């Protein structure tokens, strides 16, 4: 067999996620103190798990409607209004998906024709560009900068818009930098987009994890709702990664098209997860507050620790990552992280795994206990001392 001729050229052109390579090394080693994981260390709160169990006990093991249980969509609509002031019609404007990931893919495939340009704000989560490529689109990387606190600026956005621009991917609060966009900053972005025919994919999966100020959705800004697909989910807010439950909210015209893709590809999100999600939305606000408080405590600890060892570290205001500058040691991000791993058995992710502009940085996750973080910081400090 000549597999290279057999397999789709498009798929073959995809590079495997840069993080994977690093994780493969890590998996071979014992006793690694890891700060790499991109998911909460909490277990899904018991009342939410119980709701899932109860649905199984009651035999709710069927498919639901394609866009998800009406009860769930109604709760999502209430939640979006309660927490972010967004209003969506549960009957036509909300789809329950397999994690945020499916919602991202649906939005991109529903909007992008071959040759269309998609502006991807970078550094970012690794799936947007491959999704765009698979849809035949052309990803246009828009690098954010440390001096702008890794925020998207109107000037930078304006500079990359062309007549072929179809979509802007706006991932804030941001993985890997922890940057957020305030209302004023989003107003600036909205001003650039307002009279265009460009859509926005607003990945708000970390919306509940902001520290010091509340998350603002671009869909809540004048003229933006009509062009925005809001992607959110249960993974980060309720520690439900393994349930694979996400959703999107968008104007009816967009939802109708995305629902077709979802229908043919997925049918519906898991019913057990839908019931658990209903419980999360109804009675989970306190859980969010508790976990957010814990993350904040770790965030402050880790930023302080990194600064004390002499690393420049911009103040992350969202998600559960810090993104220190490790450029001052004459090493690439890969070299730095590999040496840290081999010398001190501490694992952090090279920043370039999230886009070229992440070179010179590293992503450190604080979805770990404070004790775990303290051990890692101590070893990192020794490492920094040894390479100064």
């Amino acid at each position, binding site marked *: 067999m000549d597999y290279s001729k057999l397999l789709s050229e498009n798929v073959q052109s995809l590079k495997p996620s840069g993080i994977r390579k690093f994780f493969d090394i890590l998996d071979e080693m014992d006793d690694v103190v890891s700060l790499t994981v991109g998911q909460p260390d909490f277990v899904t709160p018991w009342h939410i798990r119980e709701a899932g169990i109860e649905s199984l006990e009651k035999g709710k093991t069927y498919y639901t409607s394609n866009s998800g249980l009406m009860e769930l969509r109604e709760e999502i609509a209430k939640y979006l209004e309660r927490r972010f002031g967004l209003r969506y019609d549960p009957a036509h404007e909300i789809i329950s998906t397999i994690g945020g990931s499916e919602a991202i893919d649906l939005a991109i495939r529903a909007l992008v024709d071959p040759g269309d340009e998609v502006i991807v704000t970078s550094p970012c989560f690794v799936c947007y560009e491959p999704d765009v490529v698979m849809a035949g689109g052309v990803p246009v990387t828009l690098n954010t900068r440390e001096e702008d606190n890794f925020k998207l600026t109107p000037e930078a956005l304006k500079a990359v818009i062309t007549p072929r621009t179809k979509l802007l991917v706006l991932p804030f609060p941001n993985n890997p930098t922890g940057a957020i966009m305030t209302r004023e900053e989003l107003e600036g972005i909205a001003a650039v987009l307002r009279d265009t025919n460009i859509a926005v994919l607003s990945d708000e999966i970390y919306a509940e994890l902001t520290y010091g100020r509340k998350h603002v959705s671009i869909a809540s800004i004048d003229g933006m709702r009509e062009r925005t697909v809001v992607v959110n989910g249960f993974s980060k807010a309720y520690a439900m990664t393994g349930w694979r439950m996400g959703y999107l909210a968008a104007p009816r015209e967009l939802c109708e098209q995305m629902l077709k893709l979802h229908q043919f590809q997925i049918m519906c999100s898991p019913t057990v997860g839908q019931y658990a999600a209903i419980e999360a939305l109804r009675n989970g606000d306190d859980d969010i507050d508790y976990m957010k*408080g814990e993350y904040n405590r770790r965030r*402050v600890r880790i930023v302080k620790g990194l600064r004390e060892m002499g690393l420049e570290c911009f103040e992350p205001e969202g998600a559960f990552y810090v993104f220190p500058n490790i450029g001052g040691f004459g090493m690439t991000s890969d070299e730095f992280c590999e040496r840290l791993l081999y010398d001190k058995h501490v694992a952090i992710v090279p920043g370039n795994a999230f886009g070229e502009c992440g070179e010179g940085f590293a992503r450190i996750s604080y979805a770990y206990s404070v004790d775990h973080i303290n051990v890692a910081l101590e070893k990192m400090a020794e490492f920094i001392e040894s390479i100064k």
Partner: protein
Amino acid sequence: MKKLLRLLEENSRLSVEELALLCEKDKGDIAEMIKQYEKDGTILGYTALVDWDKTDLEYVSALIELKVVPQRDRGFDKVAEKISNYPEVKSVYLMSGGFDLALIIEGKTMKEVAFFVARKLAALEDVTSTATHFVLRKFKDKGVVFGQVPKDERGHGM
């Protein structure tokens, strides 16, 4: 402030800095509040939660039900205070229901605890009956589930 007390009850080793962050209050205010709580007896102490089964020390605990004769004017206070003096007695609660006082007693062996109940408690003048229930295994105590420290089995995600 309820939240501060809750946090300390859960983990009394949290620093003032961390508590201030979690309560969204000033560090100085938190320090002052703790001092006040200690002074007025709202916070009575800071302890560690030990799983004695993990050690090679002999350890047994029991719940004791006591029925007592209430005293004129002072009700159950006098006998409860008297029983509280024994260092073997870790907790004393006045209960509603079928008996009056519940005690938690710790000792090295079942025999030691049983003898303590028979010789000291049952012998008290106001105590009319005792029932001893030994703890066979602790599954959860003070909000903490006992057992193995869970392994981090999370996949990397992205």
